[in-house]
């Protein structure tokens, strides 16, 4: 069953199909939050919030639209809500050391120094640049899908991706 077909079932009140949707997408949503915030525990809380919102907002989903884009838009909005309700957390973000959790994936392909270098570079670039890199490079959203998530045109996404790669490269070599 496709995501849209699963959501159609959920909309009809067959909530058990939410389990499949969660299993398919929770790691992606968690990684979006983890890379945006650097905080594993907060990322798990926000991931839970997103899937609770999917259930509450099930009737707002239009089966004709891309589910992944709708889901990531919900994630983006949840993160913004979090920042607005706890501005201090956003301000102190850079002061928080990268937390190495016991459940970090063993398959990490980078050596620890390079990994730290990438994380530091990601921390130093603008929020909007980091977001577009995560959506397009890690989550493999098409420009049209990323445009729906971020709320800008497809051309603007493309321009933002270019600027983000440029600023990431500068941060990477200066970190």
């Amino acid at each position, binding site marked *: 069953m496709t995501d849209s077909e699963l959501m159609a079932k959920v909309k009809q009140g067959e909530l058990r199909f939410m389990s499949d949707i969660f299993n398919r997408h929770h*790691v992606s949503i968690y*990684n979006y939050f983890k890379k945006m915030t650097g905080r594993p525990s907060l990322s798990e809380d926000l991931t839970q919030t997103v899937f609770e919102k999917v259930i509450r907002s099930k009737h707002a989903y239009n089966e004709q639209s891309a589910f992944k884009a709708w889901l990531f838009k919900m994630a983006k909005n949840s993160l913004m809500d979090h920042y607005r309700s706890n501005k201090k957390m956003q301000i102190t973000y850079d002061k928080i050391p990268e937390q190495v*959790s016991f459940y970090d994936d063993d398959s990490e392909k980078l050596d620890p120094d390079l990994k730290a270098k990438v994380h530091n570079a990601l921390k130093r670039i603008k929020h909007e640049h980091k977001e577009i890199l995560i959506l397009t490079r*890690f989550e493999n959203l098409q420009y049209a899908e990323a445009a729906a998530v971020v709320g800008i045109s497809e051309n603007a996404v493309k321009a933002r991706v270019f600027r983000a790669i440029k600023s990431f490269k500068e941060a*990477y070599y200066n970190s």
Partner: protein
Amino acid sequence: MEREEKIIAYLLNELNTEERADFESAMHADPELKQAFLSYQTSLSSLDKLAAETPSIELKRKFESFLKNEIAKPQAHQNNLRILSPLKWMGVAASILLAGFFLNQFIQDAPTNSDFNTINPEWIQTVSTGKTSERIQAIHEITDKNDLDPTILKAIEEVMYNDQSSNVRLAAVESLGQYVHQSEVQLMLIEALQKIETPIIKIEIINTLTQNKDDKAKDTFEAMLAKNDLNDAVRNELHTNIRKLENIY
């Protein structure tokens, strides 16, 4: 296209065959360009190698527990009905009859030349006298199978106000929620929000109206907050949803 833009376009595979060939020739001829290209390639390659991390198993457990509760909600309410006192059962029976009366009255008043056929007598019978689960199913089925029709709309509205079970009334709100982007449904829900007393129904209506992201809902919520006798849970929900409407999308 500037030099750096061309490098990025090359790395993103956004140049056509001819442009790629031209760029590669230019790199061979210009060591500075090649150096700039390599620095982009290295940084982007490091970024792409950052692997996905796995959340703790606790996240899955927590969501499954939440989902289990959500699935069990209607069942829990049905179970509650079984322990009602005989006196309360009489009240329940009276409510069912009342809901049936409203629906039948409504059907009798409906114009005969409308899309009246969209509601068949069996449906009226089920929604008037069926079990709770049957009434919920009937509400969902009629809105899933039919386009918005004034007759159906009015019938669901009657259920939202008059059914004896809060779960059936919730199902009615949920079904109307599918059409909340239509102004007549939005106004119907705004009116119901002010007339219906049951907090859980009010909360469902508040969440449904918020989905529509409309200023009318926000104005209604703010006006309601001025009332001193508002239920605390409803008040909290209004605050939360006003914030959502202010920040939303």
